[in-house]
């Protein structure tokens, strides 16, 4: 028998409802990402729709296929699969074939989330697992960047590659600001990085809109401010220190913060509550670790960008950080915890 709306509600204390549930938190992140997604549409046109759509489809269909029927509705409605697909799509280059984006979504959900036991049990950020797989699997397609200044309805031929094929393009490719910096020593003006009119992944180009989304998340209390602040501060300080030694060779601190996927990663991916530490001290260690790794990989590594690996590596360290930063239980002496 199904219960109708009761006329008198009898309940135990507490009566204060905390409105924060998984679906609302996920919904907030989706809202916060909307401006950056729209900027992706603005700069990269129909390609953004195709690539992001394909990665969302891959993620959501995998969730439908692998989550048991009894938990399927709940798991789909919390929106985390949709969010994983969107985050993955925002980190992909605009000219990526749709089938690769779809495969990335399948891997992100399958190997990043479902196989660990679903939402809340995964060790690594699912979207970044999908991206790491794609980068290792299709290194050429994943590092072929196209220019943002084409008309909205320009169809990029590579988007429509038949599954399991890829046509290499030449002529219309453009290096990312970080690639230009690393391999050709050209510095992109900061205003372009701020507004987003540079080549790069779909959702990472506009610093301004990403920060706006982050502020919205902070106001809605969906995000631990320590994570992005510690990451960005570390990158600023470390870059400035390096700049003292050789300002020609090393990028300026502000360029470091606004180029590449740093803002997208720091605000939306590193802050994933499942894969970041729970204690305040741990959160600082986590963020500083990511910041250091990002600069180390960018400046001294072989690749122009290192945000993804930095976050994944610190994800792996998260259980250890949590274990070492447990606060003293009230009433216990120091050292009593064990």
């Amino acid at each position, binding site marked *: 028998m199904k219960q109708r709306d009761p006329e008198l509600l009898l309940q135990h204390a507490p009566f204060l409802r905390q409105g924060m549930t998984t679906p609302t938190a996920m919904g907030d992140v989706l809202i916060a990402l909307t401006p950056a997604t729209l900027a992706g549409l603005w700069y990269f046109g129909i390609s953004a729709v195709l690539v992001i759509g394909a990665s969302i489809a891959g993620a959501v269909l995998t969730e439908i296929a692998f989550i048991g029927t009894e938990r399927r509705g709940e798991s789909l409605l919390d929106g985390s699969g949709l969010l994983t697909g969107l985050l993955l799509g925002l980190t992909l280059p605009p000219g990526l074939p749709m089938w690769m984006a779809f495969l990335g979504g399948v891997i992100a959900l399958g190997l990043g989330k479902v196989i660990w036991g679903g939402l809340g049990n995964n060790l690594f950020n699912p979207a970044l697992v999908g991206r790491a797989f794609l980068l*290792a699997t*299709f290194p050429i397609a994943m590092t072929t960047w196209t220019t943002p200044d084409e008309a909205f309805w320009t169809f990029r031929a590579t988007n429509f590659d038949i599954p*399991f094929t890829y046509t290499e393009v030449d002529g219309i490719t453009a290096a990312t600001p970080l690639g230009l910096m690393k391999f050709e020593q050209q510095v992109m003006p900061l205003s372009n990085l701020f507004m987003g009119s540079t080549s790069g992944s779909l959702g990472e180009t506009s610093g301004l809109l990403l920060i706006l989304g982050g502020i919205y998340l902070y106001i809605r209390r969906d995000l631990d401010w320590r994570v992005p602040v510690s990451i960005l501060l570390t990158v600023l300080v470390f870059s400035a220190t390096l700049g003292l030694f050789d300002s020609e060779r090393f990028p300026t601190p502000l360029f470091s913060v606004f180029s590449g996927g740093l803002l997208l990663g720091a605000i939306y991916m590193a802050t994933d509550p499942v894969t970041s530490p729970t204690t305040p001290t741990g959160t600082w260690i986590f963020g500083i670790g990511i910041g250091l790794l990002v600069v180390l990989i960018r400046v001294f590594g072989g690749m122009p960008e290192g945000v993804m690996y930095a976050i994944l590596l610190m994800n792996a360290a998260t259980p250890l950080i949590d274990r070492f930063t447990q606060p003293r239980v009230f009433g216990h002496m120091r050292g009593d915890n064990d």
Partner: protein
Amino acid sequence: MTESENRDYNEFIKGIWRDNPVFVQVLGMCPMLAVTNSAINAIAMGGATLFVLVGSSFLVAAFKKWIPKQVRISCFIIIIATFVTIADYTLLALVPVVHKELGAFIPLIVANCMILGRQEAFASKNTVRLAVMDALGMSTGFVIALFTLGAVREILGAGSLFGIDLFGAAWEPWVIMILPPGGFLTLGLILLVFNWMTQRKQMFMEKVAEAQRSDS
């Protein structure tokens, strides 16, 4: 089928499915992950392992009365090493290209837990005939596992099988499949499917048993 033939058959077949050295016992992981980036390497490695395992199981079972218990492991290792050396030089003479690709992993067959495990657990306690049947079954299971992994990785990673192009030039290779992570991913997924099938079979058998009980 007589009883002894039946026993032979059982010892042979258990290595292929029920006690498969890779998918069930998860032994011999080093060659499993290292040399399965193409089907031909997998087959060569499987063949060498088959030869070593059958040869050493035969010798160990034949000499089990004369091997002192206290030094049995070193005796097994010497017997295994003999066959590994033979396999090493034979591959070098017959297929130098494959030998070069397998590199250090042929001498490392000595350290394959599966081989020493069969000597310790089976060959040193059974007759020559049963030991050889067991070795044949186990190594066939090992070859099947190596080949499955090698074929999946070569088809996805290079779009070919045994070096023959399957899909034409447009195929975009999955680079990761040729690299070490591809080995771990493929092995993990195969183990997943294997365990899932075993579990399904077990549940099915339980249901059948229950139905029979309620019938009677």
